[in-house]
């Protein structure tokens, strides 16, 4: 048993819902007890969808358990077919129905429906949402991909063609990422045959084979299907996730190679602003800001590269809840010289952030909450999402416009350069009390004092040093404290005095 306060991912059948809801013409009949229908609201409320997810729930109750729950499932499947007339049906069980072992796949077969039925086995006590989405997408692709064949080389007279794989319902900025990357591919002279699952019908999946290669936008969701297509139809797929300027350029080079094109121009055609914004002098104050990054693996890894290489931050922590991609995260963390955190325990992530005392947190809605509690600025970079992660405006993460959006989003929560200096110089101004927010964000101070977990350091603080420390602006005070304690520890200093504080400042000055 695992003690969970909050979860980063839902159960695997919610992943399957994200696929079914993203597609057209698919209906999912889910054997589940009353109450599991709460998942509908994720789509209708968080994503503000105008239609109910295409899911029929059997919603059995205790009185049904004594009777024939299998019959209940068959009735629900028959009714769903008659009412919604889907092109294809997914059938499966949620966690409780898995325990009663009614075998929805087998039952659906006996119904003899005139449409393809794709059974899903999503072990709810082992797997989670992203795995469920990946497995469902793979099962659908496999069901409709058609016979295996070897790829013939492309006729040079024809434009290269690709599919875009991975965007789902309830994905973090998937809607706008698809628009941005489609535009990018078109600008390179590449046609997009099918985008799936988002917007695709089962019939569209039959046309996946027309593409020369696949673009995998979200490996957590599409890598399994893309690997199958590579094996089955000889379609290679992209490995680079185009989030950030460098990654977008690398992605374009990778795509050009897969498409058999010359290397493309990667200057963004004048619409790319991040590089200049990062170089402009007012961005100087971003230098070396300590950031903690946590999210799904793809977004976290991409964020680390942007933070380090494109904004000049220092990555002090990098982690993911996607255990399936632990290896990739560890490799990235090593590259940035920090420790990887692979965990889906919210409390553990909170402890790590409190211990690292970053100046900016890039995370999910969970980390946004942790950061708020600790009084640290935060921007959201990954699912799990909340209603505000579906903005009305165009706000991709991918491609060159995505990089522009990221610059704005990450810099916005931070204190502006001069303001930071003024706060440092005039600590005793009565309006500069602790917890004061950047003035452009408008709201008042945090009511609760910064609850920094105080590790029992080896060196103790003399009173006057402690008082001096309080004169340092709160948003860098944590760092000053840590650095001073490290400095004292390394030199075997038992009591930190004002002298120690300034010696450490000189030592670590950047």
């Amino acid at each position: 048993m695992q003690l969970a306060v909050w979860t980063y991912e839902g159960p695997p059948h919610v992943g399957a819902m994200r696929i079914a809801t993203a597609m057209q013409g698919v209906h999912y009949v889910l054997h589940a007890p009353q109450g599991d229908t709460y998942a509908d609201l994720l789509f209708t409320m968080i994503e503000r969808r105008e239609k109910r997810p295409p899911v029929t729930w059997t919603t059995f109750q205790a009185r049904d358990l004594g009777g024939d729950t299998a019959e209940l499932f068959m009735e629900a499947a028959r009714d769903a077919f008659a009412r919604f007339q889907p092109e294809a049906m997914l059938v499966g069980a949620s966690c409780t129905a898995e325990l009663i072992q009614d075998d929805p796949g087998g039952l659906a077969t006996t119904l003899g429906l005139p449409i393809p039925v794709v059974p899903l086995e999503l072990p709810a006590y082992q797997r989670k949402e992203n795995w469920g989405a990946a497995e469902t997408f793979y099962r659908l692709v496999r069901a409709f991909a058609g016979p295996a064949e070897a790829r013939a080389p492309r006729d040079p007279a024809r434009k290269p063609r690709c599919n875009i794989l991975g965007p789902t319902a309830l994905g973090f900025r998937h809607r706008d990422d698809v628009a941005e990357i489609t535009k990018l591919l078109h600008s390179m002279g590449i046609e997009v045959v099918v985008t799936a699952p988002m917007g695709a019908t089962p019939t569209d999946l039959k046309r996946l084979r027309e593409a020369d290669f696949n673009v995998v936008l979200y490996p957590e969701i599409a890598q399994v299907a893309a690997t199958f297509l590579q094996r089955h139809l000889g379609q290679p797929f992209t490995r680079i996730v185009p989030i950030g300027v460098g990654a977008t350029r690398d992605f374009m080079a990778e795509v050009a190679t897969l498409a058999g094109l010359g290397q493309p121009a990667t200057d963004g055609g004048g619409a790319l602003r991040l590089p200049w914004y990062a170089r402009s002098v007012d961005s100087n104050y971003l230098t070396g800001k300590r950031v903690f990054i946590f999210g799904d693996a793809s977004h976290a890894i991409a964020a680390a590269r942007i933070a380090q290489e494109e904004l000049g931050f220092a990555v002090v922590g990098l982690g993911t809840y996607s255990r399936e991609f632990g290896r990739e995260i560890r490799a990235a963390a090593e590259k940035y010289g920090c420790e990887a955190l692979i965990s889906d325990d919210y409390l553990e992530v909170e402890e790590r952030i409190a211990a690292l005392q970053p100046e900016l947190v890039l995370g999910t809605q969970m980390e946004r909450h942790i950061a708020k509690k600790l009084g640290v600025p935060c921007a959201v970079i990954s699912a799990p999402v909340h209603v505000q992660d579906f903005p009305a405006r165009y706000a991709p993460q991918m491609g060159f416009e995505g990089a522009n959006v990221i610059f704005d989003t990450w810099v916005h929560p931070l204190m502006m350069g001069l303001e930071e200096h003024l706060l440092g110089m005039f600590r005793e101004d009565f309006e500069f009390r602790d917890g004061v927010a950047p003035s452009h964000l408008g709201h008042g101070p945090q009511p609760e004092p910064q609850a920094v977990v105080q590790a029992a350091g080896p060196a103790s603080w003399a009173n006057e040093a402690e008082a001096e420390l309080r004169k340092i602006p709160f948003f860098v005070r944590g760092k000053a404290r840590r650095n001073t304690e490290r400095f004292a520890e390394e030199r075997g200093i038992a009591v930190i005095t004002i002298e120690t504080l300034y010696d450490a400042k000189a030592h670590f000055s950047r």
Partner: protein
Amino acid sequence: MNGASAPQQHEGMRTEPAGCADVPILRERGQREVFCGLTGIIWLHRKIQDAFFLVVGSRTCAHLLQSAAGVMIFAEPRFATAIIEERDLAGLADANEELDRVVTRLIERRPDIRMLFLVGSCPSEVIKLDLSRAAQRLSQRFTSRVRVLNYSGSGIETTFTEGEDACLAALVPEMPAEPGTARSLLVVGALAEVVEDQFIRLFAALGVGPVRFLPSRRASELPAVGQGTRFLLAQPFLAGTARALEARGARHIPAPFPLGEEGTTAWLRAAAEVWGVSEERFAQATAPGRERARAALANHRATLDGKSIFFFPDSQLEVPLARFLSRELGMKPIEIGTPYLHRQHLAHELALLPAAAKLVEGQHVDRQLDRCREARPDMTVCGLGLANPLEAEGLTTKWSIELVFSPIQGYDQAGDLAGLFARPLVRREKLKV
């Protein structure tokens, strides 16, 4: 009514049910678009300040709680989920030992907890994990520190607000015994603190008392119960709790529910009659509240009068709400869906419903949607899974969950309650895009 004064007839409200048994009810079975009983934890964990709710369930249960809670509103909630994993099912780990380990860790983390509820879920019930035995075992282990209780909030056993019923019923055996037969009033059902305080003042003005509440704000301060206890239900979904209280000698005071000016008056009057409060004193104590409520309702009447309304089943509050909206605001209920209809507790309410309203118990969501689209009501009361899709079809909706999360009972909330229904209509009128 067993009060000192004879039952009286008052303007507009029959205190005796009339002909409710004749009300035709459509019973439906099919897909239910409702929450399970675990959802009650969202308000109960704030209501009972020293209690912690540990769901023994699956990742789905944990995901439900955070989704229904609007995702992390609170710094650290007093609820969590012990997620059952493969090794618990395969027998590799003794589920009871695992549960003890999780509970021990939890109690170490939260030394402020005085009462711990182990809350059963669909999976824990299907695998027949005996939480009542676990609660006994853990209560012994943490004697004098933490009292461990259990109830089921599973979807196979409970629908939405029935989770609160199960929780309160689990508290009843914990209530201290009231010695003797001294009369006291117990108000049953979680209410907002502001509403409780208003009722305390009203009962004091009536001379009805002592007044106690279940649940109490602290689990360590449960009210006493005994032969002299008379109880009023503040919520219509508390069948099990009422039975448990009756088993301890308490007696139910039948009444409509305290929604609106009329409902609140009748609810107070039912208790006043038991206590033999004079008509004069009753009129004096309630007049200011009644006047304020009427004035507040008048502000919304123009918006709501004559508008048709359609209820999807949700909290069991549907029947009292329809009564309030039709009688005090002139709305026309077309269909009143409720997950479960407790005829006895709703007897007064059913008698006051307009004859044209169709009552539906249970749900077949697709058929109900067909009827709703056909009827094109001016307002549809439904859950969060249906609201935006219906809005997109041009229907005006009211999220039903807000009716459970807002203070709506009593005189001084009557206007707010009407406002919850008026706002979507006013908004639709306002928007020119």
